């Protein structure tokens, strides 16, 4: 792994202030750390955003709101079957994974049994 500076963001403003080329945000880490080990990703700065208050799932007239740091299994538990096809991978990866990361990376299931629906 290439060297990098590690910092923890305690507020959204702090996290945004450290954005820029060479910065990666660390949420669940199951993709980022994996790719950093392979040196596919080589950020000069890693900002841990797990302490930011960006959790929770709620549904209203506008639609479904998912906190950017919500864990995948929480999202699955909070939804009814058929509301979202998750295609999530292994349960333990799920606990670390943050939902938008999975969506953003368009990750595919890496292990059977594949899941076909939220519960």
């Amino acid at each position: 792994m290439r060297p990098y500076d590690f910092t923890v963001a305690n507020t959204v403003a702090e996290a945004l202030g450290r954005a820029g080329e060479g910065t990666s945000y660390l949420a669940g880490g199951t993709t980022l750390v994996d790719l950093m080990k392979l040196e596919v990703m080589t950020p000069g700065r890693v900002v841990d955003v797990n302490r930011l208050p960006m959790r929770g799932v709620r549904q209203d007239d506008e639609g479904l709101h998912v906190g950017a740091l919500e864990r995948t299994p929480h999202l699955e538990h909070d939804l009814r079957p058929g509301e979202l096809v998750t295609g999530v991978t292994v349960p333990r990866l799920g606990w670390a994974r943050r939902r938008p990361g999975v969506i953003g990376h368009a990750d595919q299931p890496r292990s059977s049994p594949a899941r076909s629906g939220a519960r």
Partner: protein
Amino acid sequence: MRIDPRVTLLDALRDRLHLTGTKKGCDRGQCGACTVHVDGRRVLSCLTLTASVQGRSVTTIEGLARGHGRSQRLHPMQQAFIDHDGFQCGSCTSGQIMSAVAVVAEGNTRSDGQIREAMCGNICRCGAYENIVKAVKTVRDGKAAG
């Protein structure tokens, strides 16, 4: 402990703290052998940066048994794995047990199928799955001897 930000929790546990009960299998989040608990939730220590767990509570297989010395008793899940022969070579076992403890706490044990799905991130190349499921059910039902 001062540590390079690149060091994973797995390497810190094994190489710095000499807690070698947690095993390094694939080192890329696919086998589950390195499973530990952070604040009571199971994580893959090979994909967790040590720096990111500062101030958090980490529990490894070494920390499951209760008491000390002669009065030490295995965690019920450890005892159940022994009683049901839930392993052969043992490489995956600490990860299996850490996951199994968490699975019972999560409540994902209503059926054999649910247990298997919840445990599916822990690979056992010896194929002890049948007996692992039996061990999990024993603890779920409060029948373990530990």
